[in-house]
């Protein structure tokens, strides 16, 4: 699971970058210190031989003719003699790798050792310096009695050593970096794990499993404290929901018992032989009020339970078209009584939900469409599959809902037309909306006053 924005990967990235910088700095410094040390050693060797040569040139001590002959190079005659003691001679030669050359203001050196490279230009005029030519390191001095004295050697071996050192440093650095990244990743994972646990638990609580708590073993760490705070929040949430559940249960009892008293006594009164017409009318009115109160209480409690998430919903695979078809059959007599035509276009619209609750949605929408229609009007009901949802549309040719009232039709007790709603609780659409939303769907109302009013329900397929 790779999240470019996750804390985990950002931490890894920073950690890796810092490790690379630190290792790079150390490696670079170590390499350059070693390189400088090597060059100091090389330069010291060169300097020692240069001094010896200069001393030999200056003293010009007599040497045996044999020695002179041996040292004398072929070519132009020497302008000055250079006699080297055996110790000095031992400083140069094949075994040592050192060579020398001596110039007298001429293009070619007057003396040069046999192992000196063929291509050996005279250094430009400088007091004293070293120079690099390829893998050759040369130290020279412009000093009397000659013009320029140069001592050099190949440092290919040292350069190879340095390359090996660089490779070794890079290898070790890479290994340390890899180990560091793996170790860092492990640490980050360990540090992040409680966060994952917290978010999993919080997600469960959000989904309605209110009894879930985060397991807090380290109560003193930062995350432990966060977990404790979250746990107490969850506990309060749980308590609030439990209180709400208690309230609806208590309210159910407190509201229903008086209505039961009312209905029992009015029904007794209606059954009584000694009730006259006037009594009977009074009892009937009371009974109607009682029945209406009963429906109202049922609807309000149902709505309260939906809002508290206490209403259990089945999740069956069902077809909106079938539920709609069944309901059309049920309400047709009501529609016929008012001369209303029902046009049903039901293509399969499978969805997941509670068939009884969805049937309630259809009953509510259809009876609404009949109630608010004009006599002899029409109702159109359509089910279809649309964009991964099951879609239900119920339109009626009633007078419609004024635009100002449209956003409020799903509110409790809202009525578009107050004059004509005696038998209704005013909670039907609120319950319909609650059911649709509990299924994870959406419902909306559109109306063109005088033309038609349409309710559209979309449920996840």
């Amino acid at each position, binding site marked *: 699971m790779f999240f470019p924005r996750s804390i985990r990967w950002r931490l890894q990235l920073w950690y890796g970058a810092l490790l690379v910088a630190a290792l790079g700095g150390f490696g670079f410094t170590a390499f350059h210190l070693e390189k400088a040390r090597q060059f100091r050693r090389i330069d010291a060797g060169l300097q020692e031989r240069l001094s010896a040569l200069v001393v030999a040139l200056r003293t010009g001590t007599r040497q045996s003719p044999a020695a002179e002959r041996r040292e004398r190079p072929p070519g132009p005659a020497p302008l000055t003699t250079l006699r080297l003691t055996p110790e000095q001679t031992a400083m140069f030669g094949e075994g040592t790798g050192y060579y020398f050359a001596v110039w007298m203001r001429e293009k070619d050196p007057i003396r040069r050792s046999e192992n000196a490279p063929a291509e050996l230009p005279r250094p430009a005029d400088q007091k004293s310096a070293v120079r690099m030519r390829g893998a050759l390191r040369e130290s020279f001095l412009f000093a009397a009695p000659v013009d320029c004295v140069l001592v050099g050697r190949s440092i290919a071996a040292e350069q190879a050593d340095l390359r090996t050192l660089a490779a070794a440093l890079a290898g070790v650095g890479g290994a340390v970096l890899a180990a560091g990244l793996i170790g860092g990743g492990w640490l980050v994972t360990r540090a992040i794990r409680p966060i994952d646990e917290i978010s999993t638990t919080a997600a469960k609580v959000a989904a309605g499993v209110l009894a879930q708590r985060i397991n807090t073993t380290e109560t003193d760490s930062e995350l432990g404290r966060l977990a404790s705070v979250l746990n107490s929040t969850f506990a309060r949430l749980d308590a609030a929901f439990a209180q709400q559940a208690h309230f609806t249960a208590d309210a159910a009892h407190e509201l229903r*018992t008086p*209505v*039961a*008293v009312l*209905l029992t*006594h009015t029904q*007794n009164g209606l059954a009584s032989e000694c009730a006259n017409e006037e009594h009977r009318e009074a009892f009937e009115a009371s009974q109607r009020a009682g029945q209406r109160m009963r429906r109202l209480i049922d609807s309000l409690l149902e709505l309260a339970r939906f809002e508290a998430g*206490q209403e*259990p919903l089945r999740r069956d695979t069902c077809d909106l078209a079938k539920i709609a078809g069944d309901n059309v059959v049920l309400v047709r007599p009501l529609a016929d009584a008012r001369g209303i035509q029902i046009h049903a276009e039901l293509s399969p619209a499978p969805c997941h939900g509670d068939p009884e609750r969805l049937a309630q949605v259809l009953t509510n929408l259809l009876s609404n469409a009949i109630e608010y229609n004009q006599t002899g009007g029409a109702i159109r009901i359509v089910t279809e599959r649309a964009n991964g949802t099951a879609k239900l549309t119920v339109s009626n040719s009633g007078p419609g809902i004024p635009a100002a009232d449209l956003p409020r039709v799903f509110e409790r007790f809202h009525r578009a037309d107050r004059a004509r709603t005696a038998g209704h609780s005013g909670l039907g659409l609120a319950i319909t909306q609650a059911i649709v939303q509990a299924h994870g769907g959406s419902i909306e109302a559109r109306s063109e006053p005088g033309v038609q009013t349409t309710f559209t329900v979309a449920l996840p397929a």
Partner: protein
Amino acid sequence: MRLLLVEDEPDLLSGLARALRKAGYAVDTAGDGEEGLFKATSTDYDAIVLDVMLPKCDGWAVLTKLRETKSTPVLMLTARDRSADRVRGLDSGADDYLVKPFDVPELLARLRAIIRRAAQQACSVIEIGAMRIDPAARSVTLAGAAVTLTAREFVVLEYLALHRGEVVTRTDLYEHLFDENEATLSNILDVHIFNLRKKLGHEFIVTRRGHGYSIEG
């Protein structure tokens, strides 16, 4: 038929008792769980109407304790209508369950049903020979002709018919026909039996001397 009605709301208790008495039942009442449990265990009722929310001892506890000794049919009344509550009620041994507020005719129909089931009668109309007894309509016909009975006479006949083939003792009849408040005269039963025989035929109700009465099935 004698019923026990356990309900803590006095107005509902009186209204229900009146409705049940009007329907021909002998009704005892109790205002809390303890009293209800005491009466339910000490008398053989034909059915008990039991509220769930009761002071002292709630309906569930009454039902559980009652079921230790008696299998009297029980109809629970409650204001809670969640299916979980209904399942709990039926699983605890209640025979039926009615949510408040209810319609009196529905309560009466459900009571008739649980009483009938307890007497192992599947059919709502009892037919014995040429006689049809309809407890719902409280009517009796003999060979197609309606017979007019008083409420008490009907109850005596209904009880004997529900227990036909058995000998029903006078004590049984007294216990099931009169509630706790009625000062019964010892010969009132003889009067009802005499009238029933006069209306339905003399051989219909057999006297088992020293035991009681019976209707042959």
